[in-house]
C-alpha cells in the first residue's frame, strides 16, 4: 500500500481548464465510447496524481459516479492516488533482472531511503516503485530515476546513484 501523505490538494484553475479541454478533445477522438482510462491518464499527466477532487471532476465530466472512477483508478498500476516524489525511482523486477539480482538492488534502495515500494520519502524527494520489465534486459539489472536509465546496477552502486539526485 502506498504511504498516505497529507498533501493538501492545490490544483490551479489553469490545470482545471487544461483537463476540461483535454476531456473535450478525447470525447471527439473516441467518439464518446470508452473514455475513462484515457481521461485518467490525461488527468495524471496534468496533476501528477489523482486526488479525490480530480476524480470528482472526471466523474462530473463523464456523468458517472465517483465510485466508478475510483474503481478504475485503483485497478490499474499506472494510476496513483498519492503524489510521487520529485525523483521517481524504478527498479525492474522483471524476470531477466530478477535472476540477475535486481531484488537485492531494490532492497538496498528501500533500506537507503527507508521507504517501501509505492511510497515516497517525507520530503517528497524520492519515491520508489518496483517496475515490470522495461525491456532493456541486456542491461539487467536495471534501475531508473525519472528518465535516466542505469544498467548492470549492483547494490553497492545504489548509494552513489541516489547521491546524484540529493541536493
Amino acid at each position, binding site marked *: 500500500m502506498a504511504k498516505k501523505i497529507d498533501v493538501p490538494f492545490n490544483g490551479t484553475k489553469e490545470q482545471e481548464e487544461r483537463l476540461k479541454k483535454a476531456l473535450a478533445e478525447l470525447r471527439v477522438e473516441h467518439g464518446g465510447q470508452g473514455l475513462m482510462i484515457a481521461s485518467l491518464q490525461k488527468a495524471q499527466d496534468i496533476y501528477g496524481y489523482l486526488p479525490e477532487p480530480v476524480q470528482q471532476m472526471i466523474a462530473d465530466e463523464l456523468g458517472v459516479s465517483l465510485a466508478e472512477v475510483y474503481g478504475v483508478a485503483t485497478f490499474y498500476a499506472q494510476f496513483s492516488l498519492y503524489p510521487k516524489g520529485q525523483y521517481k525511482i524504478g527498479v525492474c523486477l522483471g524476470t531477466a533482472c530478477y535472476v540477475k539480482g535486481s531484488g537485492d538492488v531494490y532492497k538496498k534502495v528501500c533500506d537507503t531511503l527507508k521507504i517501501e515500494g509505492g511510497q515516497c520519502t517525507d520530503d517528497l524527494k524520492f519515491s520508489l516503485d518496483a517496475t515490470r*520489465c*522495461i525491456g532493456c534486459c541486456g542491461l539487467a539489472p536495471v534501475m531508473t530515476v525519472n528518465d535516466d536509465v542505469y544498467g548492470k546496477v549492483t547494490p553497492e552502486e545504489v548509494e552513489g546513484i541516489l547521491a546524484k539526485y540529493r541536493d
Partner: protein
Amino acid sequence: MFRSHILVCGGTGCTSGNSMKVYDALVERIKKEGLENEVHVTKTGCFGLCALGPIMIIYPEGAFYSQVKVEDVDEIIDEHIIKGRIVTRLLYKETVGEDGNIKALNDTDFYKKQHRVALRNCGVINPEKIEEYIAYDGYEALGKALTEMTPQDVIDVISKSGLRGRGGAGFPTGRKWQFAKNSPGNKKYVCCNADEGDPGAFMDRSILEGDPHAVIEAMAIAAYAIGADQGYIYVRAEYPIAVQRLSIAIKQAREYGLLGKNIFGTGFNFDLDLRLGAGAFVCGEETALMTSIEGHRGEPRPRPPFPAVKGLFGKPTILNNVETYANVPQIILKGADWFASMGTEKSRGTKVFALGGKIHNTGLVEIPMGTTMREIIYDIGGGCPNGKKFKAAQTGGPSGGCIPASLIDTPIDYDNLIAIGSMMGSGGLIVMDEDNCMVDIAKFFLEFTVDESCGKCTACRIGTKRLYEMLCKVTDGTATMEDLDKMEELCYYIKENSLCGLGQTAPNPVLSTLHYFRDEYEAHVRDKRCPAGVCKKLLRYQIVADKCKGCTLCARNCPAGAITGTVKQPHVIDPEKCIKCGVCMEKCRFGAIIKA
C-alpha cells in the same frame, strides 16, 4: 545516392544505453563535414542483439559496431567514413573472420540459425518512414487482398498456412477469423493485443518499434476478411517509443489513403486507433482487454459468448497478438505453402523469443518452430556466462514452466512445450544457471500473479495467495513434506476453477518446478538448506578458520554484532545473532567467509 548508410538501433534496449545521443552526434558531425548528401544516418528498430547495445551497422561494408559511445563517434567518422578504414576495436568480434575480413551478419552464430519473418524489417528500415516500408513490399499484401481476393480467400490462405496465435495459447488464427466472419452483424471490430505484460518478454515491443506498419497492414487485411471497419491497438503505456512510432505510422497510413475510406479505390473502409493500457497484466486476457478498451476495470468475463460472437462493445470482434499480425502480410504475399514449409507439422512458421537471464547473447531471436532448446541456448545464445552450468529455461512467463537441462533437446513447438509442463507463452525465454533457486523462481512468479490477479474469482484471488504463502514457508524452512503435497493439490484446484487464463495457468511455475526439481524443494523442507544459496533464511554464513587472518574487519562491519574473536585469531559468527545481510562476506579480503 548515398555512398554510405549508417543504421543506428533505436530500440528500447539501445536507447536506454544512449544510442540516440550517438545518433545525434553522428548527424551533427556529418553535417559539420558537409557530408549530408553522401552519408545517410537512419534510426532503425531493434537488431536483436541487445546484449551488445548500443549497436550500429555501416553499409556497404556491413561493419557491425557494438557498445558504441558518444565518444566513439569522432573516430568512426574520421576513420571509417572519411578515410575508409574500419574501426576494428568496435567491431562485434563474431563478425570478424579468421582472415580479418568482415563476415556477413547472417553468418555469425547469433544470426545463422535464425529465420526472420515477423522481425524481417526490424533493424533494416526506418520505422518512422512509411516509404521505407513500402519499398520493402509494404502494403502490397493489402492491395492483393483487396483487389484479387475475396474475404473468404483471405481466411482460407491464413487457415491453410497453419498460423497459430503467437500470444501464447496457439489458437488457429484462420479459425478465429472464420468465426468472426460467420457472426452476423453490421459492426465488427479488429483488435491487436500489444499489452505485452510477461516479465522478461519484449518481442512485441520490438516489432511495434521496428516495423509498426506490418501490424497496421495486417489488421486492415483481417478487417477485410471478417467485415470490420474499425480497429484498436491496445498497447502498454510503459512502451513510450512503441506508442510514438505507432501514432506516426497510423498518421502516415491515413495520409497515403491506406487507412480511412475507400482504400485502394475498392470501397473498403477501415480506420485504426490506439488505446493505452494502464498497467494490468490481466488485460492481456482477451475479454479483460476488451473491457479495458471500453474504459472499465479490466476484469475478464466468462466465455462463451466468445468475442467472435460478442466482443468489444457487444459486437463480433477478433483479437490477435502483435507477432501473429506481423506474419500475415507475408503469408498473403508468398502464399500458405511457403509459410507451412517452415516449422513442425502442428506448429508452422517461426517464433520470436526474448532471450534473457543468465545467457551471453541477451536479445531477440526468431527461429523456425522445431528448433531445439539446445540450439537456442548454446548455438545462438552462447550459453551461460562465467562458465556456470545451465540449469533450466523458463518459457511462458508467469503462465509457463521451467524446462530442466535434461529436456534441452526438445524441439520447441506449442504441443511439445505443453507436454513437458510449460507453454509457448508470448515468447520470453529466461535462462537460469546453478546459482538460481527454483523454489525462489516459482515464488517470484507467484508473487507476480498474486499481485496481478484481478480478484474477480475466488480460486485465483485466494488460491494464488495461499499458494504463495506455502512457497514462503518452503523458502523460510518451516514447511513440512505434507505441505508439498497440499501445494500440488491446491495447484490443480486453482487450474480447474479459475475463470480466465491468468488463474488457469498461474500454478504452472510451481507445478513444473515441483515436478522437475522436487529434490530442491525437499532440500529446503527436510534439510533446511537452499542448494543454490539464494533463500536468505536458510543461509549460514561461516568463517573458514584456515583463511581467517583475524583482521577484525568483518566484526567491525557486522550490523548485528554477531561476529566475535580476538585480533589475529580466527573469528566466529554466531548463527543466532546473524541476520544474513552478507556484509561480512563483502568486506572480507581473504575470502574466508562462505555461505553454507
